[in-house]
């Protein structure tokens, strides 16, 4: 039986954690994601950029009280990729 290939963008602990977190919310700020994933600032920044480059999340940069504010939101492409990834994972677990 052939297994469906796992999306390399999502098959990474931190990137999968970020997308799973964004599935359940409308949008989330950088600090919220940082707290919930327990990642380091640098690593999270890199992985958010990877997800953004893949078109899975939209990143909005703004300011609040003169401090930079990063807000992330899952895109339709990201949602579709997540659903496909979950289906593939289920296929692996069934065997």
């Amino acid at each position, binding site marked *: 039986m052939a297994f469906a290939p796992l999306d390399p963008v999502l*098959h*990474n*602990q*931190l990137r*999968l*954690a970020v997308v*799973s*977190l*964004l*599935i*359940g*919310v*409308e*949008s*989330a*700020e950088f*600090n*919220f994601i940082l707290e*919930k*994933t*327990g*990642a380091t600032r640098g*690593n999270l920044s890199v*992985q958010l950029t990877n997800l953004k480059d893949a078109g899975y999340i939209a990143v909005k940069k703004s300011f*609040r009280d003169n401090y930079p504010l990063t807000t992330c939101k899952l895109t339709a492409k990201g949602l579709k990729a997540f659903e496909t*990834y*979950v289906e593939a*994972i289920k296929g*692996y*677990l069934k065997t």
Partner: protein
Amino acid sequence: MNTELTPSESLKLIESMIGQAKKSFSRISFYFLLWGVLLTAAMIVTYLTGESGPSWVNGMAWGVAGALGGILSAVHGARQSKTEEVANPMDSIIGWVWISFVITMMIVILCSVFVHRDPGAMITLLTGIPTFMTGQVMRFRPLVIGGVLFWAAGIVMHLTADPLALTALYCGAMVLGYIIPGIMLKRQEDGLRTP
């Protein structure tokens, strides 16, 4: 946190993160405490002035409580929205349930004024709906129990006309349905006690 995952680890991670997101509700204890105290005070003023005072004093107590609560809620909500780190769709659902309740309550009050009937029992009964729903959505049992108590108080209030009994039932429902759950929710929001 960049390691390769096995399929079962992936699934566990997904479940854990979705669970974290679901728990990310806005802080709403302020509203329960504010409205609980204001409406309980308005009911007590209404009872104390009901026998002797002019009728406009009773109306004014509810008017002042409503206006003060509305202004403070709006200011608090505006400030809170500026500092919110996450937008949870469940927050929107809870918000719309409460807006629906306020609209229904205003209609009930207006209709009651036209037919010269006390709207207290009906409003108490209606208050059970958003309180119960908020508790269920947030999985916060004190609010679920509070909603049931509002329904129970609303039923009994329909069966009596005694001012003292009506006041005791309404204030009791407010304390047990809004104020005590509000205090417990605040403790949870402050991280003093986990759910």
